[in-house]
């Protein structure tokens, strides 16, 4: 039996995901967000026949206790309790704005794009329900410039408008192709007509966001789960996952052999059943490029849950899990990605645009043969200097990623000081966008 439905770049996942012996609530199994039939986009008719009509609750606020009982947390990476965000915006009561965040700036993550391509109607259902819950009449879906996807979404929105499904019209809004474009306050800036650069908080976007209005920002996957919880209830949702971290989530898996899949899995799944942890894998990156490396043997003891990953220095985040093959240089890979992260700085905050490039340069030094011994000490000093001193968490996440590399690839660093490397050719493995343009328009 295939574990969850995958959106394969190749023929499909080979990994048999153990289901566990726990009793499953009827219909609470996986897949939930994707159709069992595979990676084919679900049109409106199919969506309505599978899921029943959009269950409007009739009044603002009604969905909040349901979501609280379900324990749904954000699937965009921060895992913030959904009911609390909704309550905060609903309380603000002054012309709130609701935005579905599909700007998946993380190069290693495909799940939002896949979800929007295959199950847009679940996301759009979620948007309408969220809008009803906070009493909003302004709804938008923020997605990267991808003509095919945007056209598909516009068509879906038009179809729903014709069927009089949506009470509030949905505007599709362009997100610039930047790593930080999906950050909450950067999103609010962009939709307010400015470049997509993060802002200082306070105020947070739920207080003052788009055009100064209270703004509810939810990842598109969160909205999809919300749409299902509204139909089937909190108990159904808790039929998967763990008691503290209930439900299912989408993960982007990068295997050591180069395959890249999006799978839906439940929280609490052992990492070893998601990524291959055999002798061909030396480490696993969990949480994306703001996450942390785990040594393969450690990863083998952990499950996909913050309860396991946080103490190990990592976190679930947006579900990116990347296995590093044993024959690649972890430091070189980290240096490559850190250089990308440094260049993705918005350039607003002194500590960030001064510190991250220096850290990246130092890592590049460490990744080369017989590196300057001061590079690591300098890097650690700069890491300490940038943490917490930006308007957003870009420096913090980058430092977390770099620190974990220094820990997990310590042996590799030692080899480098002797002029050796597990992969002198330093072949790239982790995905990065080909674009390196510094065009100001890229932020608009």
């Amino acid at each position, binding site marked *: 039996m295939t574990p969850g439905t995958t959106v394969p770049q190749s023929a499909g996942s080979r990994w048999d995901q153990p289901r566990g012996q726990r009793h499953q609530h009827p219909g609470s199994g996986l897949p939930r967000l994707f159709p069992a039939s595979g990676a084919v986009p679900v049109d409106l008719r199919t969506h309505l026949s599978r899921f029943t009509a959009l269950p409007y609750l009739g009044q603002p606020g009604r969905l909040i206790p349901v979501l609280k009982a379900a324990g749904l947390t954000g699937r965009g990476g921060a895992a913030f309790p959904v009911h609390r965000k909704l309550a905060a915006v609903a309380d603000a009561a002054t012309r709130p704005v609701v935005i579905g965040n599909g700007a998946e700036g993380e190069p290693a993550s495909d799940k939002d794009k896949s979800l929007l391509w295959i199950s847009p109607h679940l996301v759009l259902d979620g948007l309408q329900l969220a809008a009803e819950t906070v009493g909003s009449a302004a709804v938008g879906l923020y997605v990267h410039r991808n003509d095919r996807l945007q056209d598909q979404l516009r068509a879906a929105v038009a179809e729903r408008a014709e069927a009089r499904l949506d009470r509030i019209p949905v505007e599709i809004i362009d997100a610039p192709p930047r790593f930080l474009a999906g950050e909450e306050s950067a999103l609010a800036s962009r939709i307010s007509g400015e470049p997509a650069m993060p802002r200082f908080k306070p105020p947070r976007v739920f207080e003052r966001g788009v055009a100064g209005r209270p703004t509810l920002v939810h990842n598109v996957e969160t909205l999809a789960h919300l749409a299902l919880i509204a139909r089937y209830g909190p108990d159904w949702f808790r039929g998967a996952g763990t008691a503290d971290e209930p439900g299912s989530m989408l993960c982007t898996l990068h295997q050591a052999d180069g395959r890249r899949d999006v799978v839906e899995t439940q929280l609490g799944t052992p990492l070893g059943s998601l990524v291959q942890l055999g002798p061909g894998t030396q480490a696993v990156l969990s949480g994306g490029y703001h996450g942390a490396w785990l040594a393969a043997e450690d990863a083998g003891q952990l499950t996909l849950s913050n309860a396991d990953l946080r103490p190990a220095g990592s976190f679930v985040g947006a579900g990116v899990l990347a296995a590093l093959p044993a024959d690649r240089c972890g430091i070189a890979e980290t240096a490559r990605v850190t250089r990308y992260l440094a260049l993705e700085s918005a350039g607003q905050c002194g500590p960030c645009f001064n510190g991250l490039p220096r850290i990246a340069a130092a890592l590049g030094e460490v990744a080369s043969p017989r590196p300057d011994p*001061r590079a690591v000490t300098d890097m650690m000093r700069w890491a300490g200097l940038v943490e917490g001193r930006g308007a957003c968490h870009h420096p913090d996440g980058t430092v977390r990623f770099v620190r974990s590399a220094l820990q997990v690839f310590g042996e590799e660093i030692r080899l480098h000081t002797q002029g050796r490397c597990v992969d002198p050719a330093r072949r790239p493995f982790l995905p990065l966008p080909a674009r390196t343009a510094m065009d100001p328009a890229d932020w608009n």
Partner: protein
Amino acid sequence: MNGITQSTALWYASRATGVVSLLLLTGVVLLGMLVNRQGRLPGFPRFVVTGLHRNLSLLAVAFVAVHVITAIADSYVSIQLAAIVIPFTSSYKPVWLGLGAVSLDLVLALIVTSLLRARMSRRVWRGLHWFSYAAWGSAVVHSLYSSTDLHHGVLLYTAIACWLAVAIAGCWRMAHAGREIPREGRAAATLEMMSPGRGPRRGRREAPAAQRPGADIR
């Protein structure tokens, strides 16, 4: 002095305070550029530059007030009260005095907006503050043609010194504005600065060109 046959104490006071106002305004403009470029007055902490810029601008307003009031009070030439703030409405030398009114209006606007800086958007305040150059420039032209005082002698050299100071400082200021790296390019510029061969920087003292690493990258 030639040309003035019936000068009064008030008229002299107006001319004198006019000259001082011009000097103060010139100082304020120069200090403003120094603040912007994060420069220092040698031997003094940075807050002195900002403080002096603010205090001199307030002092300048005081001197301009005396300059204007004595000019009105003086009966030799007839200048209406309203002409102080409504440009080009005076019956005596409307154009040149008008420019004085323009300068005063601008200076008042700059000071009021700066006092209320916290209540407006940064961009709006900055945009308005650029008018300080116009305020100084119109004061200069006003000073040159409202009387012949600045056409010879010490006052001529003083005036030239003011113009040169602002012109040179202005070029320095604009040159830097031209070289300033926009936000989107700063990280790349820093990375460029750290290119291989230089090695990781250890801090202020070992930076190559600027006194502070990344000083150009602000």
